[in-house]
């Protein structure tokens, strides 16, 4: 049979016809469509049982209660807890995006590591825990053998008062080094101001909710200051129109921030002149008799002119203010019109329970001690100290002390003579551990660095310190750097050895007194997920290192692990009269103002621990407002306008020498009695003005500006006139921009004495003329692709004066030059 071409086509036609009357084409069409909907690389979240774990957020010192939603043991969402007195259901952007800090492998260390590439490059190889701990312990042993234990130094970003902080200090003390440095934060400023004026280094406790006039000097009230969810929650209540109207809120700040815009009034004072503004207000209040005379007479020292022990007449605060801070003069310093100052002072003076708050942005960095004192002086003028709606005098949490460290001769010698730099000595008596001084000491001289081994805990000073890059330079001189960071941050990239800590949701940690909260509060977080990677609690690692070093160092740590050390401290709470639950019926600030004692809802430490573990918090919703005669621990036993402790320190240090020279070295130019009272010192160097602009870095609430990496979700909230396509934008007033021939979007070079950065211009009417504003937290050179190389780091431009008395950096005003590129 001959098969023709036609037959072949007929065969094919038969096949084609046949296949169409089978399910093949129809089923395939359907299935292929479905196939395109299920690409194997698009993740399908695993299903399972839903669970909730209640805990406390430890990402910032805000102390928010959180509820972690879990599916099949995976954490899928962080939400605010409504049964929690601080945040009452609210949460902040960082907290809400917290899971990206837990699971993102590209920003975390997955095990202990040692460096293999050059410093800063971030190349590491995994090592075992025993090798990592052993390496560090041997190094410490060697330092002690060489009789130079002080060459071990630590930079600790742990929050003050926590067991973590305590363990680091204890390790250094047992080894024999006084060189333990904390990262700057507003809490240091508060504590020192309280020590000088109130005589106790307790936390600042602002009873904001009970105030009827809130005057904030620079606090980013709704942008992350204090316990953010507490303040924003209160703010929301105040704007609830049908209910009782909240206090009038006035913000003092140089830029139209969210807080300034959303406040009832905005006072635009030049950055760094807040103290002058407060004193100008004091002038009006004193001269118009809008002060609480009974409080001033009974419970303060140095308000009126006084006679000292040596029978010399001394100038009082009143005289100083009336002489030196007239509204006209203050208007010249601050740029705020004199009539505005007078009106504000009258409003503050006539309010029933006015409260002046001091802060600098979110409070992640230091403030100015003198400014803080000047603001606190305003509260004192109105008797708003230790009253409901005022600044409450608190002593700190009743935590039990650990047993004293038994030091050996090597350690004692190191502790006595080994302090680096000038912190805490005659030049800076109130700078307990200023990191700036360590940097100075390391960079001094051509020889070997006085620091041999540097431990870094929960901090990223290479990036966050507003020091123009000095810390990074200092690191290059330090032979061994050990980082305990769980994250691949800039400082860890410089480290030789990594002993990674757990991250927030994996570890137990206390939140000791959220910043600014009026009542004693302790939050206790618990691990809500099993550690995702091979990390260890930094407390456990510190104890393990100490044990490995052996001898008296090991003996200083009579605990098996962190939790034992923590429990030993929390035992103190069992003695105090607090509560571990909150039924939500009545806000704590209401109970607090009533001042009625409460009976504890636990009967033993074990009971307390059980409740802390499940509830996550302890607090004391009451306060004794009547102990004004006993609550001040100052030399005079009163609230001191003239700070005896300061004068004493200067006198002691000057012993025989000239107090004037010494004061100058401390950064104080005021002379006579003014020097020991809250007064104003100029911030900018003499060369400011003319063609230069003043650079003011600012913190954002919706972007991580401290040592934590920024969760990528938060970048969704960044506006494209802040950061666009990896370029930072600087805010400039249109008028100033016109003077410098700048238009929206222009690319410019900002130069300071410390360095230069390239940014783009955003014209913003809310920027103070003559100033240039740059957001902090951008410009990372480490972490993963979601954080790296985005914008520029404003902290690297900061090159300013040092804050008087504390020696901390004045990061809020740097004179810069601007050039179009």
């Amino acid at each position, binding site marked *: 049979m001959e098969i023709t071409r036609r037959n072949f086509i007929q065969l094919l036609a038969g096949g084609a016809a046949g296949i169409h009357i089978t399910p093949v084409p129809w089923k395939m069409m359907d299935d292929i469509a479905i196939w395109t909907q299920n690409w194997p690389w698009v993740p399908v979240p695993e299903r399972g049982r839903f669970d909730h774990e209640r805990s406390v957020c430890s990402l910032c010192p805000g102390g928010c209660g959180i509820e972690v939603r879990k599916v099949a043991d995976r954490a899928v969402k962080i939400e605010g807890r409504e049964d929690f007195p601080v945040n009452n259901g609210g949460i902040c952007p960082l907290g809400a995006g917290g899971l990206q800090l837990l699971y993102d492998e590209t920003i975390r260390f997955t095990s202990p590591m040692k460096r293999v590439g050059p410093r800063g490059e971030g190349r590491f190889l995994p090592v075992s825990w025993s090798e990592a701990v052993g390496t560090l312990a041997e190094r410490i042993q060697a330092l002690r053998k060489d009789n130079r234990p002080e060459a071990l130094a630590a930079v600790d970003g742990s929050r003050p008062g926590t067991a973590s902080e305590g363990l680091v200090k204890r390790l250094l003390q047992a080894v024999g080094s006084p060189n333990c440095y904390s990262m700057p934060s507003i809490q240091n400023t508060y504590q020192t101001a309280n020590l000088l004026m109130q005589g106790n280094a307790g936390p600042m406790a602002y009873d904001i909710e009970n105030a009827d006039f809130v005057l904030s000097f620079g606090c980013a009230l709704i942008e992350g200051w204090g316990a953010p969810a507490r303040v924003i929650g209160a703010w929301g209540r105040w704007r609830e129109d049908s209910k009782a109207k909240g206090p009038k809120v006035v913000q003092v700040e140089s830029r139209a921030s969210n807080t300034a815009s959303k406040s009832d009034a905005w006072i635009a004072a030049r950055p760094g002149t807040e103290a002058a503004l407060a004193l100008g207000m004091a002038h009006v209040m004193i001269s118009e008799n809008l002060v609480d005379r009974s409080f001033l007479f009974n419970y303060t020292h140095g308000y009126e002119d006084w006679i000292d022990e040596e029978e010399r007449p001394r100038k009082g605060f009143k005289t100083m203010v009336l002489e030196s801070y007239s509204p006209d003069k203050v208007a010249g310093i601050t740029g705020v019109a004199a009539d505005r100052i007078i009106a504000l002072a009258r409003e503050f003076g006539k309010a029933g329970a006015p409260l002046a708050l001091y802060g600098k942005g979110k409070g992640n960095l230091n403030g100015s001690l003198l400014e803080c004192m000047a603001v606190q002086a305003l509260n004192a003028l109105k008797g708003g100290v230790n009253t409901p709606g005022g600044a409450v005098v608190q002593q700190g949490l009743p935590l039990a002390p650990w047993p004293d460290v038994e030091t050996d001769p090597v350690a004692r010698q190191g502790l006595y003579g080994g302090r680096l730099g000038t912190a805490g000595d005659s030049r800076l008596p109130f700078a307990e551990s200023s990191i700036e001084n360590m940097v100075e000491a390391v960079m001094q001289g051509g020889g070997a660095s006085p620091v041999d081994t540097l431990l870094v805990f929960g901090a990223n000073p290479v990036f966050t310190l507003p020091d123009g890059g000095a810390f990074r330079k200092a690191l290059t001189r330090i032979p061994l750097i050990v980082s305990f960071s769980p994250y691949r941050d800039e400082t860890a990239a410089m480290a030789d050895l990594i002993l990674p800590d757990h991250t927030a949701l994996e570890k137990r940690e206390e939140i000791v007194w959220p910043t600014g909260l009026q009542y004693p509060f302790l939050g206790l977080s618990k691990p809500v997920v099993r550690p995702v990677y091979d990390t260890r609690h930094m407390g456990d690692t510190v104890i393990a290192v100490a044990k490995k070093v052996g001898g008296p160092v090991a003996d200083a740590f009579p605990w098996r692990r962190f939790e034992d050390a923590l429990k030993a401290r929390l035992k103190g709470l069992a003695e105090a009269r607090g509560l571990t639950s909150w039924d939500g019926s009545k806000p704590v600030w209401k109970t607090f103002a009533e001042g009625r004692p409460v009976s504890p809802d636990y009967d033993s430490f074990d009971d307390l621990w059980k409740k802390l573990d499940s509830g996550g918090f302890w607090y004391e919703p009451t306060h004794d407002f009547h102990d004004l005669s006993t609550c001040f621990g100052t030399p005079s036993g009163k609230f001191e306008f003239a700070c005896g402790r300061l004068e004493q320190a200067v006198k002691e240090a000057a012993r025989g020498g000239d107090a004037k020279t010494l004061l100058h070295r401390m950064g104080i130019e005021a002379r006579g009695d003014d020097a020991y009272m809250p007064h104003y010192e100029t911030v900018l160097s003499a060369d400011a003005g003319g063609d230069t602009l003043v650079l003011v870095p600012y913190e954002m609430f919706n972007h991580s500006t401290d040592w934590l990496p920024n969760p990528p979700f938060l970048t969704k909230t960044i*506006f494209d006139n802040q950061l666009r396509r990896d370029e930072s934008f600087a805010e400039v007033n249109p008028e100033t921009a016109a003077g410098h021939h700048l238009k929206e979007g222009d690319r410019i070079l900002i130069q300071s004495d410390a360095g230069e950065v390239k940014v783009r211009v955003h014209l913003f009417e*809310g920027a103070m003329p003559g100033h240039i504003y740059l957001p902090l937290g951008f410009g990372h050179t480490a972490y993963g692709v979601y954080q790296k190389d985005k914008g520029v780091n404003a902290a690297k431009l900061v090159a300013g004066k040092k804050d008087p008395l504390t020696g901390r950096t004045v990061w809020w005003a740097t004179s810069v030059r601007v050039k179009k590129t």
Partner: protein
Amino acid sequence: MSAKQGKHKYGMVINLDKCTGCGTCTVACAAENNLSVIKDETDKQRTISWMQLFKVTNGKPFPDTEVSYFPRPCMHCHYHTPCVSVCPPTATEIDYNTGIVSQIYTRCIGCRYCQAACPYQARYFNWWDGHFPKGTERYLSPEVSVRMRGVVEKCSFCHHRLMRAKTQAYAEGRRELKDGEYITACTEACPAGAIAFGDLNDPNSEVAGLSKHPHAFRLLERLGTEPKVYYISSKDWVRRMADNYRPDEFQPL
């Protein structure tokens, strides 16, 4: 003008006087709804953010400048829903029993007509398959499906939370939900309590009351799309931002 009346009509009221512009709503939304993260989240033409913050200023010179914020979810337009009326494959639809405008990713053909039609720019296109930093696929919630490349997505009023609330109610033997049982993730997270969410049809609900507030307004109200997201602001300059007014047309309070 009238739209079909269903049993429930879920809506939102955002109090801009309370809103602090903190961005928690945006982040909580992203975390709740498995939002994809691209390398450059500052590229606003590519990034996805169901609840997007818009910053406005009153334009006055220093120091009288003020800023304010508009958090913008999907408006779930109740009448002649612009996106629904143009969608060729019916991938988006309004359910009059809830008032929620749905978006079905597996049905979407990626033509982006809805994106063009939406007056609020509430719709986002997936230029890439859902992407998550390495390791973070572990936080994905099974309640919301992960989107593939080539589809449009938008705020769903956290519809899965309605289902969650209903499931809970059924377990307790109830068919009806109480006010506040079903709220969106942004409502729950807002630390200022600026967002209220509930059934506008229920005269006793919080939102029904707030939506009649004298300071309440909606965005581009005069388009007649009956958005179910209301805003409250006591400031005239903020309310004025909500629509394109001719000079002298805006009525201050």
